[in-house]
């Protein structure tokens, strides 16, 4: 072990760590499971239910194009995740990587952003899960009773957190089947909605499909940046598909092929659903029902499938429930990792030895998420959507940071090979610049409250911007406090990749 990596990663330098034997090889992740991991972390049905309505309201018939273009930065940043993960035997994430590449200040903020994404998204997930589940059973009145939904959603957050804390995992196979069932439900929806819309059996506002729908630039920049930001949210988590180590899978080519297939599936379902919705009901219907928030997707599902609408409703609900785990776990583990490196108080690093989970940080994520959810619900009905937009700001921020960190960490090797230059340098940096640019555009656009989905104004600017600035400001206060306390985290210094960690084809000299 080299001294430089020991300096930047104290957890690796502890020679006292007892030896841990690797687990069973037969438990390696197979091809379908690898595809499923990417889908599971992205939660297509929930993502569509959450953002398709607002995207169509914002950009109209350009929605398919916006969903397509949003994937580009995701793909480029996923390349950064892939290459950073490969040189990091710690299975880190943005916090560890950015700290190692760019030092403690950037690393701290990256970690904070991840922890806060968990806090912001959980309320929305639980809210959508509860409402759609009530609709599955035809309890429409209950589903529009906000008090009841809030209480049930809090109950669901507590239940899902408890499941994360006791570390129970639904077996990989069950998860894989659930994910593919979710995709099947969406494909059925797409097929039926298209067939009905194209045969003239849709609503009067239904449009005739045109190639121009794939052009995202049809609307103004303000609408486009807001739409793209929600698009980034829709693909959030997909990087898990490329984040698999080759050792965890049953063959070296599995992660690559699985990532390609999960990409194709996501693009088909996202763009297909957007097109199907436009053909069946048209943008006017969505604009008229904009106040219905996520429920608009339920209306459309019933419009398309009639008595079988519950198939899509159930898919959305299951997808949202499954997604609580893939959002709470990264947030709480990042908080634990920050605590263990003394960037957070040690208290957040406590674990449950019996369950092998970061129990303290997990409960804290849930508690703050519940408070956030309840407060935001009280302030405004639409604020839940505004907080999704704020969440997208955080995602764009930490993805962008990760893209830059990748190129910075590998900087010595970038000019040694074409492959390394393109995939490790240019790709992640272009993705990072796109997201940074999107961040700036969105901040400018949100300075005008009219561009907020809810059209509300807080302190003269759009609510998502207020929420975003509020969270970063709190983070900055804690960060400075931690710096003033002078914990050992602040002595960590940036380093670069070692030549022997990188294959020759990418400019290194690994055997």
């Amino acid at each position, binding site marked *: 072990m080299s001294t430089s990596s020991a300096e930047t990663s104290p*957890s690796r330098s*502890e020679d006292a*760590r*007892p*030896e*841990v*034997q*690797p*687990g*069973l090889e037969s*438990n390696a992740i197979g091809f379908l499971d690898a595809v499923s991991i990417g889908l599971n972390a992205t939660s297509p049905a929930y993502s569509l239910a959450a953002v398709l309505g607002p995207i169509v309201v914002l950009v109209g018939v350009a929605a398919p194009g916006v969903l397509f273009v949003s994937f580009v930065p995701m793909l480029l940043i996923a390349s950064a995740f892939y290459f950073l993960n490969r040189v990091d*035997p*710690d*299975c*880190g*994430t943005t*916090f*560890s990587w950015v700290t190692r590449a760019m030092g403690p200040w950037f690393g701290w903020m990256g970690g904070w952003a991840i922890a806060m994404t968990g806090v912001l998204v959980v309320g929305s997930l639980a809210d959508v899960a509860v409402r759609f589940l009530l609709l599955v059973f035809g309890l429409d009145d209950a589903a529009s009773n906000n008090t009841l939904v809030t209480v049930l959603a809090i109950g669901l957050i507590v239940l899902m957190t408890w499941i*994360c804390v*006791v*570390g*129970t*995992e639904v077996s990989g196979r069950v998860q894989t089947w659930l994910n593919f069932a979710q995709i099947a439900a969406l494909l059925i929806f797409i097929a039926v909605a298209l067939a009905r819309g194209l045969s003239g059996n849709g609503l009067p506002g239904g449009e005739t499909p045109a190639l121009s729908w794939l052009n995202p630039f049809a609307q103004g920049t303000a609408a486009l940046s807001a739409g793209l930001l929600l698009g980034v949210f829709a693909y959030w988590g997909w990087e*898990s598909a490329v*984040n*698999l*180590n080759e050792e*965890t899978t049953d063959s070296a080519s599995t992660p690559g092929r699985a990532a390609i297939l999960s990409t194709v599936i996501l693009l088909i379902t996202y763009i297909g659903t957007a097109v199907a919705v436009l053909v069946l009901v048209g943008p006017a219907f969505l604009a008229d029902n904009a106040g219905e928030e996520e429920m608009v997707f339920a209306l459309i599902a019933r419009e398309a499938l009639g008595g079988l609408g519950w198939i899509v409703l159930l898919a959305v609900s299951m997808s949202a429930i499954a997604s609580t*785990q893939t959002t709470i*776990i*990264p947030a709480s*583990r*990042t908080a*634990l*990792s920050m605590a*263990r490196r003394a960037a957070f108080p040690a208290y957040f*690093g406590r*674990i449950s*030895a*019996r*369950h*092998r*989970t*970061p129990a303290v940080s997990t409960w804290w994520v849930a508690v703050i998420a519940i408070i956030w959810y309840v407060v935001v619900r009280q302030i405004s009905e639409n604020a839940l959507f505004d907080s999704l937009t704020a969440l997208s700001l955080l995602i764009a921020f930490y993805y962008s940071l990760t893209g830059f960190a990748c190129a910075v960490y590998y900087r010595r090797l970038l000019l040694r090979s074409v492959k390394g230059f393109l995939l490790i340098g240019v790709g992640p940096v272009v993705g990072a610049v796109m997201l940074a640019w999107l961040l700036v555009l969105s901040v400018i656009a949100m300075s005008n409250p009219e561009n907020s989905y809810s059209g509300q104004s807080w302190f003269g600017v759009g609510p998502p911007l207020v929420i975003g600035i509020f969270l970063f400001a709190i983070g900055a206060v804690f960060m400075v406090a931690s710096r003033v306390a002078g914990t050992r985290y602040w002595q960590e210094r940036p380093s670069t990749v070692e030549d022997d960690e990188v294959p020759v084809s990418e400019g290194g000299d690994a055997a």
Partner: protein
Amino acid sequence: MSIVVGYDGGDSSGRALEAAITLAQDLNEPLVIVCGVAPAGGVGEEYRAVEDAVVEVLAPAVEQAVELARSRGVTADSVLVDAGPVDALEAVAEERSARMIVVGYGSAGHIRAALFGAVAHRMFQRSTAPVLVVHS
């Protein structure tokens, strides 16, 4: 041949340990104390940080268990495995050609066991070696 026991520092696995030590004495077999330390929740995000935290807490408990067994005249050693409890036991049992596997029952809690299956149940289904379940 050996006797393999699952131990995680909890009460019910403590009872399993007691039973396994007695059996090892009577049968004159070496004892292997196994502890799965993989974080629950899958690979990815800060996996190693969580595993390090788990090892910090569990390794001393496992070490004490080894000492307890040795103090009773049993040849004992321990293995920490980067896997969940069931996979850890299965891997080590195979490797050390276990004569039997000893596990506690109920450490996971009754609700959880009922919903998702206890370690003991899953061992029954998977293990080729006989499984001794010690009730708490």
